[in-house]
């Protein structure tokens, strides 16, 4: 299963390396470990 949704890069972002940190909200019934996913902004 994949969970997904739109992530928008703001107009003022500088191209290059960035991170998307994914986690569950504190209100979730599940525990999560924030996971840093390396991405490239073009």
């Amino acid at each position, binding site marked *: 299963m*994949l969970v*997904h949704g*739109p992530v928008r890069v703001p107009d003022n*972002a500088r191209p290059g390396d960035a991170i998307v940190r994914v986690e569950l909200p504190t209100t979730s019934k599940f525990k*999560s470990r924030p996971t840093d*996913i390396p991405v490239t*902004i073009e």
Partner: protein
Amino acid sequence: MPMLLSTLVAVQAALSAAHEPPPIDFAAVPRTIVTQPKYVAAPRYGMFLFEPRGEQRGTQRMWLVLDKSSADAEAYDVLYVDRDGDGVLGEEGERFVGVAKDGGARFEVGDLTQPGTEVVHTEFVLTWTKASVRYQMLWQGKTKTMGGFGPYRETYASFGDSPAEATLYVPGYDRPLEFEHWMCDKLRVGASTDFKVFVGAKGSSRGAFSCGNEKLLPEGEHAIATLIYTDEDGKEQRVRAELHERC
């Protein structure tokens, strides 16, 4: 918030964090095998890691080793599963012959009792192809857990050539959930990307992620994705998005 209440909340949060298992140090996981059968071909090594329960200490290991039924066979069509986790491979009930499928082999193992416990995971199936090794099972007979996945199909893991190079998987949901992206590591300035993530547990390599199916996170649950980037002035900025969709 009154000081006493805020203190109690902080203490509860600290205790909760203290009880969370730390990330697995895969390099430190012992790779010893007590006894191995006489293999026909060059064996390929994988391992399941389970969380300890009750009085158990350390992560519970279960070796998975692929072999061939004959030296000239194309497919790895024999699977050894160290079902009792004692490191003695090839005991009665631990050798399985796969069914040929699309040039690969499919092993229907069935129930897996978590070593040292009475916890039973059901419908365990492992599939070998030249490109990768995949597995699935019903965690505690309820929710599907499967792997190994990576950010692109060509990154899906195979088993290793030696115990030291074994691919380690963490099936199930005993640990805090982790995430891996699926084909969306390139983002464009000023544009939206449909950011997709697997939900589950990291393995020892990028293509060894284990995840759940659509029943893992029920309706109403969602993930938060925070983009941490550098702006035109060189300052770190953050923008938050919510991932509500399923596929």
